[in-house]
């Protein structure tokens, strides 16, 4: 969070905190110094007996009292530093904070409870640390706790410290009034500093929240645009593909068919008058048709998946499976019980697509972690089994994916079965090596 906080606000808060700490140090120094010097003066002016009779305890010797106050303040600051820098583990943090509170109590005692402003320094430390969402509750709790400590301190130690008034009573009444005013002034200024720090902190927090909200809005907007753009891009790709197809058909089939149609028209006229010429013409038409077939084949090849284009089926399939396993995190095993020898390109493609679709479904719908893809051959056919360990489904509702697969297979006179017991299993079978079907007559020409 610190990174996205505006730097100037942060540094102002830190500056004010430092001011608060330095100010408290100054007050502690002055108060402890005042009490120590007064104590020395009381001893040297022979007023010790009267002074002692106004106290509930024997105070520490002047120098010791001063050193204790200074020492406990330094300890408080050091622990506060440790706490804010979070140099220790979370368990250690609590210990540090407890120790800091302890140092605060010690300091207040050594100052004879005359100044309780250091409590605010501890509260500031605590707030500095917790900037999470629980901060407000924690803060209220901590403030409450620290003030209870402060008041408990007052209640319990009141009878055990030399009151500030007893020290002030050593001086003339007019001086006493000044001393009291200065002491109250110390407390007030401390309060003002603390409240300013608090306001700055809250302001900073508010600003930060606004920044985050605005960033969120921008992000949402960008997201929406991106989605629209993706849709657009998809549509464009489709259109481009359609155009390409149209162009291919126009360039290849259209061209050949036009040639054939024109040639046949000539033949119709020629066939009675000059059968020989018509024969020649027909030979030409055949040539045109053959060229057209070659062109169509080339076009079809252009539409095949890339891997399948470049690699043999087994390698393409292995690579596709490995890539998918890597990207999805599923464990996919490809078991080849036998590879069919001579598959047509369309048959290869269908097998390739079935595996691709099946594995995708296992991941997407079945949430499977493990898939076994088995490919094998039997005389006259090739079968493919895709079994996963996913959720499966009680009743298979063929979606677009399954229906599409089935349609593709049916074109090859194959069939698709699926069931779910432990996971989901898909079985695809196509006749292999048979050369039936009008749609692929063009392949005869390869033969």
């Amino acid at each position, binding site marked *: 969070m610190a990174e996205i906080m505006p730097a100037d606000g942060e540094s102002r808060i830190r500056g004010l905190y430092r001011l608060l700490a330095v100010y408290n140090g100054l007050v502690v120094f002055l108060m402890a110094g005042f009490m120590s010097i007064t104590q020395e003066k009381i001893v040297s002016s022979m007023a*010790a007996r009267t002074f002692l009779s106004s106290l509930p305890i024997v105070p520490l*010797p002047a120098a010791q009292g001063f050193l204790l106050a200074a020492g406990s303040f330094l300890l408080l600051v050091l622990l506060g530093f440790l706490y804010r820098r979070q140099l220790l583990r979370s368990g250690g943090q609590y210990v540090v904070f407890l120790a800091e509170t302890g140092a605060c109590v010690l300091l207040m005692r050594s100052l004879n409870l005359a100044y309780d402003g250091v409590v605010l320094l501890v509260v500031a430390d605590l707030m500095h640390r917790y900037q999470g969402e629980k901060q407000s509750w924690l803060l209220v709790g901590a403030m409450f706790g620290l003030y209870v400590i402060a008041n408990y301190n007052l209640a319990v130690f009141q009878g055990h410290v030399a009151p500030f008034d007893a020290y002030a009573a050593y001086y003339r009444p007019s001086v006493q009034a000044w001393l009291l005013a200065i002491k109250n002034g110390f407390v007030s200024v401390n309060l003002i500093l603390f409240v300013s720090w608090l306001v700055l902190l809250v302001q900073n927090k508010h600003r930060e929240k606004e920044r985050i909200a605005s960033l969120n809005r921008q992000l949402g907007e960008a997201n929406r645009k991106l989605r629209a753009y993706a849709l657009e891009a998809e549509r464009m790709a489709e259109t481009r593909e359609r155009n390409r197809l149209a162009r291919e058909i126009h360039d290849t089939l259209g061209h050949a068919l036009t040639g054939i149609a024109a040639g046949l028209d000539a033949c119709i006229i020629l066939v009675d008058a000059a059968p020989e010429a018509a024969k020649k013409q027909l030979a030409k038409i055949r040539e045109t048709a053959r060229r057209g077939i070659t062109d169509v084949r080339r076009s079809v090849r252009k539409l095949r998946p890339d891997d399948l284009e470049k690699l043999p089926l087994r390698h393409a399939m292995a690579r596709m499976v490995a890539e998918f396993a890597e990207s999805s995190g599923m464990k996919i095993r490809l078991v080849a019980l036998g590879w069919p020898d001579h598959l047509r390109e369309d048959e290869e493609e269908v097998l390739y697509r079935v595996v691709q679709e099946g594995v995708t479904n296992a991941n997407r719908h079945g949430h499977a972690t493990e898939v076994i893809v088995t490919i094998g051959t039997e005389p006259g056919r090739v079968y493919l089994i895709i079994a996963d360990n996913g959720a499966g489904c009680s009743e298979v509702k063929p979606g677009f994916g399954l229906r599409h697969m089935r349609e593709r297979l049916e074109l090859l006179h194959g069939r698709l079965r699926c069931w779910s017991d432990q996971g989901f299993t898909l079985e695809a079978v196509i006749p292999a090596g048979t050369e039936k079907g009008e749609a692929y007559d063009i392949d005869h020409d390869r033969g």
Partner: protein
Amino acid sequence: MRMSADAKRRLGLLLAAVLLLVLGGLYQQRQQPVTLRIGLFAGSNWDVPDSDSYAVVDAAVEKFEREHPGVTVSYVSGIKKEDYSEWLAGRLLSGDEPDIFVIPGKDFNLYASIGALQPISETGSRDPSFSWEVYYPAALDYGRYDGEIYALPAASVPTLMFVNKTLLAREGIPIPRNDWTWQEFYEICRRVTRDTDGDGRIDQFGVYDYGWRLAAVANGVRLFREDGKASFFADSRMEETVRFLRELHKLEQGREVTARDFDMGRVAFRPFTFAEYRTYKPYPWRIKKYSSFEWDCIPLPAGPSGSSSSSLQTMLMGMSARSHHKGLAWQLLKEICYDPEIQKLTLERSQGLPVRRDVVESGSLQEMPDTASPGGGLDLRVVSAVMDHAVMEPKFARYEEVMMRADSELRGVIDGSIPFDNALNRIQKEINGWLQQ
């Protein structure tokens, strides 16, 4: 962010260094020779002249140093009694108070309550070579605050009645027994108060300096609540006391009895503290100059509602709660306040009395050379009985001040210049007002 290994190592080193310093400091302190300090004042605690006020302490210190080689004991000499309270307060405030010190009675409650004194009830009870039983109860109680003992008595002084044997013999009156009462006392005073030379003026008296304080104690009056926040001047026994003193005063028929009258042998009775008695005696020229009479000491007469008790003045010594050598300080305190030899020295070399009953009772007049002179004698068994029956003086801070305030009023009531009516109620109200301020 976790602490890096480097920072950890540095922290470890720092801690080790601190530990080493502390241990070194402790070792250094161990090695240094121990010096115990005593706080005490010059002169007598009993407001009587004293030429050799450090004699007992010096002897105790010498004995202690002999018994504890390596330990030295020192004290600041020459602090006057009237400066001592302030001196002690100054030391306490500066944090360099002596390990053990004499505690002025009016400061005792304050120092016990603010924790300047080390409580010693437990220490004393645990010490097998120590027993509380040897002390006179009133002396021991003087060092008690809120049920806890904070100081041991070092010496005590009871108040006794001086009797002019010569005068009584001349009047044909036997010396009163130790358990005499106000009635006998009044009777004797009435008989001796007369004009002996026939000039029409009374020149022989019953008693000098028998004040309401003494009479009140002898009549069992308890004037103050323990905490010194309330007084009981309107008590019926106090009324009885004042009535008695008024009667006694009337005998003098307006003549003011003076110390000179007593010195001249013209007064039958005079209360003396033991210390006053001892310092009165070393100046025989004072008596010899004017007159010569034989005298005796007996307890004070008992009032109808009380016994013959008197108040016991006690000098207290306590330990500082901040002493670094509490064990040794306790031994030194015991040396002064408990050791029979030193206590016996108190009898011989100071104006006070030992606080140990066995030491007082085994003492003899020969050990008190100043009292061995002709003129009178002192039976220490009588003194011991007086001390056993004594009550301790109240010791709250404003005791003396309040008593002074009451004194002028009561004197007026006793000599008849202030009507008696409900004077005591009025005084009680006034005093309570002061006490609660």
